[in-house]
């Protein structure tokens, strides 16, 4: 078990003929991901990499290969259209890697998602990886090790840092999931916590957030009543000046309870083991799991 993706996930890559799309498709295939088709409007009929057929639309790819997941590498101004195309084609899991999508576009996509059977991860995220089975994203696969910890993170390289620390502490991961650093995202922390809580192979959860928004606070309050597994939390941006956007579109403090300090306090009150320093993430997870056992 794991969450959302495994060795049976059948994938279509949207934007496969672009340089990012091609490069990461190759990397994903190398990891063992089942990429069955690609989509680039106007390039239907071509083949790419290991004879992967390219289609003009997601629907064609779905009709021909019965794909159930898509991953999107298209420029930000076309990304909302790509997500909507996948929703309309009935793709169950959509991963959007693209960064820089207008908020207004995402408000519409989010509304469509709420009225569909599709789940979105991202945008502006590194994707998702189920160790040794399926990599749908841009993360380095080799740093992961099969294990019993689920990782949820708003940030790409911080996810890698957490994975690395877990491995150095003798732990491994079930699935690691980058949910994205934008103000509006498809799968939020509560949804991710719920998935890991229901996954019998996952024994502990690392949840990495940052300044801005209320998501970490809402997730902590939800976890208090609904998650039985130990959670280690970390919030980046303790030293971020108020009112400044720290790289990620969503990483900006616009209210009192959006600071790292306020979030840490709420997380701790909800029983989450809070790492004040990024360097403590691995240790704390190890401690939590040892205590539990």
């Amino acid at each position, binding site marked *: 078990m794991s969450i959302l993706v495994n060795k049976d996930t059948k994938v279509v890559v949207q934007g496969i003929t672009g340089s990012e799309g091609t490069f990461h498709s190759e990397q994903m295939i190398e990891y063992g991901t089942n990429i069955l088709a690609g989509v680039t409007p106007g390039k239907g009929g071509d083949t790419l990499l290991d004879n992967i057929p390219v289609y003009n639309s997601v629907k064609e790819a779905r009709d021909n290969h019965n794909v159930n997941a898509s991953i999107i590498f298209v420029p930000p101004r076309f990304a909302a259209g790509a997500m909507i195309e996948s929703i309309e084609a009935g793709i169950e899991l959509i991963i959007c890697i693209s960064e820089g999508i207008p908020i207004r576009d995402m*408000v519409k996509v989010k509304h469509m998602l709420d009225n569909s059977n599709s789940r979105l991860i991202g945008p502006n995220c590194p994707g998702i990886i189920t160790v040794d089975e399926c990599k749908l994203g841009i993360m*380095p696969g*080799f740093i992961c090790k099969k294990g019993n910890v689920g990782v949820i993170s708003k940030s790409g*390289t911080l996810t890698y840092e957490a994975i690395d620390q877990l491995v150095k502490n003798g732990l491994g991961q079930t699935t690691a999931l980058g949910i994205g650093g934008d103000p509006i995202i498809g799968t939020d922390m509560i949804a991710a916590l719920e998935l890991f809580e229901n996954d019998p192979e996952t024994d502990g959860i690392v949840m990495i957030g940052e300044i801005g928004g209320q998501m970490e606070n809402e997730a902590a309050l939800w976890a208090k009543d609904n998650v039985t597994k130990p959670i280690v939390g970390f919030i980046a941006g303790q030293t971020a000046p108020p009112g400044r956007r720290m*790289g990620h*579109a969503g*990483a900006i403090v616009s209210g009192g309870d959006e600071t790292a300090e306020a979030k840490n306090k709420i997380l701790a009150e909800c029983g989450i083991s809070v790492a004040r320093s*990024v360097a403590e993430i691995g240790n704390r997870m190890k401690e939590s799991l040892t205590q539990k056992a």
Partner: protein
Amino acid sequence: MKIHEYQGKRILKSYGIPIQDGFVTDNNEDIESTIDRVAEEYNCNQFIVKAQIHAGGRGKGGGVKFCPDKSSAVKSANNILGMNLVTPQTGEAGQKVRKIYITKAFDISHEYYIAITLDRSKNQDVIMASTEGGMDIEKVAEETPEKIIKVWVDPIQGLHDDQIKTLADGLGFKDDLFSQVSDLFKKLYKCYIEKDTTMLEINPLVKTEDNNVVALDSKFNFDGNAMFRHPDVNDMEDPFEVDETELEAGKFNLNYIKLDGNVGCMVNGAGLAMATMDIIKLSGGEPANFLDVGGAASVDTVKNGFKIILKDPNVKAILINIFGGIVRCDRVAKGVVQAVQELNLDVPVVVRLEGTNAIEAKEILENSEVKIIPATTMQDAADKVVDAALN
């Protein structure tokens, strides 16, 4: 992205929203003629002189003055134009006033607050209105939250008439004023949506003695990701409101924010960059900046990063923290060595490379001719760079 009040009011005006208008000048010699133009165009003999800077709290810092006649307006305008305005939001350094907006003045019977912004928890836009205008709205929200009326707008259906009624009724408007303010909410929401705004605030919106509803101020935040759709708005950006180094970093495609400390840092990824700043602080140092160099840490990126960080004379040591994923660490290491050599750096540089080929990378750094301090974990790196900055 932010713009000045007068620019925001031009946008509001283009949507048919009534504003307190006037003219702008950036030149002391033009002050008198500007006041004459305002008097003639808006048929008035009382004026408001308003400093045009992005920071709020301008009135508290003396950047907004009511002037009962032309001579006092000339005097105030000369005082404000060119002054260094310190407000609760500018910080101690203040902001130089390079433009002033001279508007007509009129009698006000009540001040209201209205704003539209994205509610991130609900993934919907929220319209907020309050009878407590002209004040610090966060204080109102904290002390008397019942005085803020909120309606959430469905992104597909848009703003409903019954929602507009909730807002207008809540503010106590009746008859003609009810129609005026209803019309204003419709136009304001349209403007908010069409211009890819993330926050549009009018504080205060006023009811005049002669029963008109008028926007006295305007504050816009735009979605930087959507500016490709709005080149006209993009052109409104005032370079004087942006830190010079931050502007230059932008040209290199680097995401840099200046801070007050003495430990510079260069990191790939925004989250890891924040976590690096935080661990520098926790280890006894003060971060000098936020700098995200993005995924591909090439020689050029690293060189440009050094150049940007070293524009800040406070920087005593630099930490490079790269988690090499797809980018191989040995390549990054070679890039760092080359950049340090070519730039002849004399500040200590601590380098932590983790990920693909990290061991080879460490060897490259250790065997290089240049003075680089290799580090392993984030804690090791933070300790070493704080130590280097202190000595």
